[in-house]
């Protein structure tokens, strides 16, 4: 069995490389494809192997998705906040350093969260029944805090409400398939690329420094804050990495560098700990976990096997991420950034039509327009997460 599991891990890593490096191709999409093909796959492979492949893909994705976010300025919801500090370092010739910081956050956050799993199993089971009736109000508190800390509160509130209304309409369209793709790609992907085209970005020669000068205390604090925030995002539906990052930045003093460690830790820890939420609460917090929950009964034995597989994947992908980033750092200066950005916008539009039809394309255009509001008005992009938060808040409060 061990060879089959290692084979499934390799397949998952290959899929994760595709989803992680290709802007707009999310793990939810591949998970949905695996589920829709399960009638053909389940007779051929034990369900555990499909689950291991999905989990390996998802963990790989969380390690690699900052590479396009930093080098191409094409993020997803989870990496949206890494664009600004990441892009800043890229423009200073430190793109490799930016990705390396997120990889350190992912690896150390993952190890810490797995070490804490035995405690978290009890904590989640104990506190969730008390928190459940309060979830909607806690989320309102988080949103209010985020809006009030922004210098342009009115615009921040307007962006949150407009994104939320768009989310409410689009997520309730019965004829639209894969609604998250055009919504998130428009709000966070296309809009960022359009801005970078407008700003006529020139990318300097990238430095590849093997030694990273960062204070150990700062690193430990950032990993701790990222792990805690990742735990919260796995517990609360609708709370994404962006909101988690805002919470984490209130816990510790954050610099550009430690912020990237926090972002790396949050998205990986969020995925790892959503397996705990599945085991303890039988609740799936993202598309990949929904696929896992449909394929297999997550008993303790299976969860232990999956966590060990996650560790194996994390080790392999850390080395892979450093190699791939070095490659990106060498190539990026040789590519015409304008054509690259235009190419990615066209790719996202084509994928939008393929995955969600012409209606999805219209949603993509609207979301892209709305996504421009944050950089044009100089407000934080995370207010656009109202697209998911407002529907979730209304679900819990009404």
């Amino acid at each position, binding site marked *: 069995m061990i060879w089959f599991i290692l084979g499934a891990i390799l397949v998952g890593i290959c899929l994760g490389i595709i989803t992680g490096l290709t802007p707009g191709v999310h793990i939810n999409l591949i998970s949905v494809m695996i589920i829709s093909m399960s009638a*053909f796959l389940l007779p051929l492979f034990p369900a555990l192997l499909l689950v291991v492949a999905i989990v390996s893909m998802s963990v790989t994705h969380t390690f690699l998705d900052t590479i396009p976010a930093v080098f191409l300025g094409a993020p997803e919801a989870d990496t949206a906040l890494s664009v600004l500090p990441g892009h800043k370092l890229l423009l200073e010739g430190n793109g490799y350093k930016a990705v390396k910081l997120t990889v350190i956050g992912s690896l150390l956050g993952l190890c810490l969260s797995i070490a804490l799993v035995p405690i978290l199993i009890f904590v989640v089971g104990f506190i969730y029944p008390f928190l459940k009736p309060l979830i909607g109000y806690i989320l309102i508190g988080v949103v209010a805090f985020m809006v009030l800390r922004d210098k342009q509160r009115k615009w921040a509130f307007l962006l949150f409400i407009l994104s939320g209304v768009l989310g409410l309409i689009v997520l309730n369209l019965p004829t639209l398939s894969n609604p998250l793709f055009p919504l998130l790609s428009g709000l966070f992907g296309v809009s960022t690329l359009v801005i970078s085209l407008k700003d006529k970005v020139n990318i300097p020669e990238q430095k590849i420094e093997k030694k990273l000068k960062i204070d150990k205390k700062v690193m430990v604090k950032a990993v701790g804050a990222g792990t805690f925030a990742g735990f919260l995002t796995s517990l609360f539906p609708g709370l994404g990495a962006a909101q988690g990052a805002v919470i984490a930045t209130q816990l510790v003093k954050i610099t550009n560098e430690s912020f990237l460690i926090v972002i790396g830790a949050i998205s990986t820890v969020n995925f790892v700990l959503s397996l705990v939420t599945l085991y303890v609460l039988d609740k799936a917090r993202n598309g990949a976990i929904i696929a896992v929950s449909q394929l297999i009964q997550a008993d303790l034995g299976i969860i232990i*096997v999956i966590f060990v597989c996650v560790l194996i994947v994390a*080790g392999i992908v850390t080395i892979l991420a450093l190699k791939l980033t070095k490659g990106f750092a060498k190539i990026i200066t040789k590519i015409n950034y304008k054509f690259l950005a235009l190419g990615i916008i066209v790719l996202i539009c084509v994928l939008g039509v393929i995955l969600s039809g012409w209606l999805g394309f219209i949603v993509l255009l609207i979301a892209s327009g709305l996504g421009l509001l944050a950089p044009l008005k100089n407000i934080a992009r995370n207010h656009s997460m109202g697209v998911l938060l407002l529907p979730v808040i209304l679900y819990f409060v009404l």
Partner: protein
Amino acid sequence: MNDNTLIKISLFVSVGGIIALFFILQFVDVDAISVKQVEEKSDGDFVKVYGQVNDVISRGTVTSFTINEINKLDAVVFDNLSLEKGIFVELEGKISEEQGQKQLIVDTIRIR
């Protein structure tokens, strides 16, 4: 932290993980098999399979159904169940051979 330290941690985590997986698999029950592997099992063998419910026929206290569209497996439950086509199920039971055709006599069914 330099690259070599990061790579050392990665190797430790990966190799340690593989060794841990080897030992854990000796104790943990991960014996759910694919429907295709059912063909290799003998009459009376106890198996656990996952699948998607296809055709369902309920007659009195017997419910028979197939799981999956290709490499189908017939399953029988001695109970009156209302199963919907397309749902995912986990089945545990004994293999029985009827006229050269393998079927699963279900002891436990869990709907996902």
